[in-house]
């Protein structure tokens, strides 16, 4: 327990200390909201699909969570390069506890980031359909964050340096985001694309946010919970296994 706590505390402290990271990671969601929310809004309206800003807001929350969560996991590569990883590897503690603590820390940070984006969209005029469901939505944010922090940690355990960074960005993070239905409705898509969307765990995360925040989902909250929960467990197991195999 203490191991999990101290690993968690480290992640959160590091995050709260780097003001540039907090502000920097808010730039992207705000840009998306401005450019897409206001830019595509009128067309979306004309097509009869309703208010695009309300549709987009949960997607942008999901975006900030997946980016922050995956990068918190990937940070382990920096730990490896700057040597701190060795300090945790020689410690007489369970590898699973180390992995879980740091993943939980990364997920906490990503959830904070998601909540900040939620506050920003509310300031910009977004109104949740039911305020009472907002805390439940935040719990789902934590679950989504945990899923992707574990994925990031799994990837990081298998990489030695930052050379693979671009690869992860272009072939993992970007596709996960763009093919998740964060930006467009997933009904009536070409079959191939619709299949891919159903395969992307983030689709279920964003669907759950839409159900809870704007009452407009397609998979159903039970389905979202089952998929997110089981994928999280699988990623955590994979990450712990890879972490226990790390040698320096």
């Amino acid at each position, binding site marked *: 327990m203490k191991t999990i706590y101290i690993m968690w505390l480290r992640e959160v*402290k*590091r995050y709260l200390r*780097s003001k540039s990271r907090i502000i920097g990671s808010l730039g992207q969601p705000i840009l998306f909201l401005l450019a897409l929310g206001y830019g595509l809004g009128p067309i979306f309206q004309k097509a009869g699909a309703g208010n695009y800003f309300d549709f987009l807001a949960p997607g942008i929350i999901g975006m900030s969570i997946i980016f922050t969560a995956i990068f918190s996991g990937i940070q382990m590569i920096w730990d490896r390069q700057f*040597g701190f990883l060795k*300090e945790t*590897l*020689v*410690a007489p*503690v369970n590898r699973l506890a180390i992995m879980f603590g740091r993943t939980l820390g990364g997920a906490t940070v990503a959830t904070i980031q998601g909540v900040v984006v939620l506050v920003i969209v509310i300031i910009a005029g977004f109104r949740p359909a039911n305020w009472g469901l907002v805390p439940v939505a935040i719990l789902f944010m934590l679950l989504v964050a945990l899923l992707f922090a574990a994925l990031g940690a799994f990837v990081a355990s298998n990489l*030695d340096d930052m050379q693979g960074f671009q690869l992860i960005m272009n072939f993992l993070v970007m596709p996960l985001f763009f093919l998740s239905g964060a930006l467009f409705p997933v009904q009536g898509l070409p079959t191939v694309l619709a299949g891919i969307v159903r395969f992307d765990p983030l689709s279920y995360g964003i669907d759950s946010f839409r159900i809870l925040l704007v009452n407009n989902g397609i998979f159903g909250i039970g389905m979202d919970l089952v998929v997110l929960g089981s994928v999280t467990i699988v990623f955590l197991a994979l990450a712990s296994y890879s972490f226990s195999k790390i040698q320096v």
Partner: protein
Amino acid sequence: MEDIIQVKNLVKRFGDFTAVDDISFNVKKGEIFAFLGPNGAGKSTTIKMLTTILAPTGGEITLNGNDAATDPDAVRHSFGIVFQDPSLDDELTAEENMEFHGVLYGVPTKLRRERIQQLMEFVELWDRRKSLVKEFSGGMKRRLEIARGLLHHPAVIFLDEPTLGLDPQTRNHMWSYLEELNRTEGITVFFTTHYMEEAERIAQRIAIIDHGKIIAMGTAQELKDKTGKESLEDAFLELTGRVIREEESSVTERMRAHGRMWRGGRR
């Protein structure tokens, strides 16, 4: 006296390359033991295996009565280590780095606070405890790492080239502290260095490793007598030759290349 470190037929191969080739040695409890060798001889690889972060290809390691292969956590409790390159968290303060270590090693809160203050005062960093480690110089980081490595009162402390890049003042201070700990607490010190006069002055016993094999072992005097040389430096050169070796990093690179290959195959 009992042997605190026992190494039997230890082997480490990276692909075709044999970094450590069937070495055996013992270190007695309370001894100051120097492990010398040219770059790429296998020093760091051996330390990594002794400290459980690298799995040997073959052989046995017993540390403080515990087998490194079957009971790594007991072994991990028994040693402290100062790595060749820094292993601190730059984004945390000096005190937080100490805290983190103390919690990981299960040192009870009250005792932890006491020891942190005592150790940080000793390495003269108590005034800087609230500073982020990234503001520290190389020497300060090294001192902090030594303090951290001792926080859980290990039976053995490993130091991998601990004085690299330190000025004579810091180096002197560090060794006098470690010698005092060795005298008063009976802590076993295992270190590597490229400074021969340091090994000659500090170490009670010396092993020289080259091309993955231990080629000589004994007191500094014994090594000098064996080679008929005046100084340990000359004895060392006599034993290991004058050819300049490839950089130590090449071993790491080889390891990494191997790692990539291996992981690539698994995916």
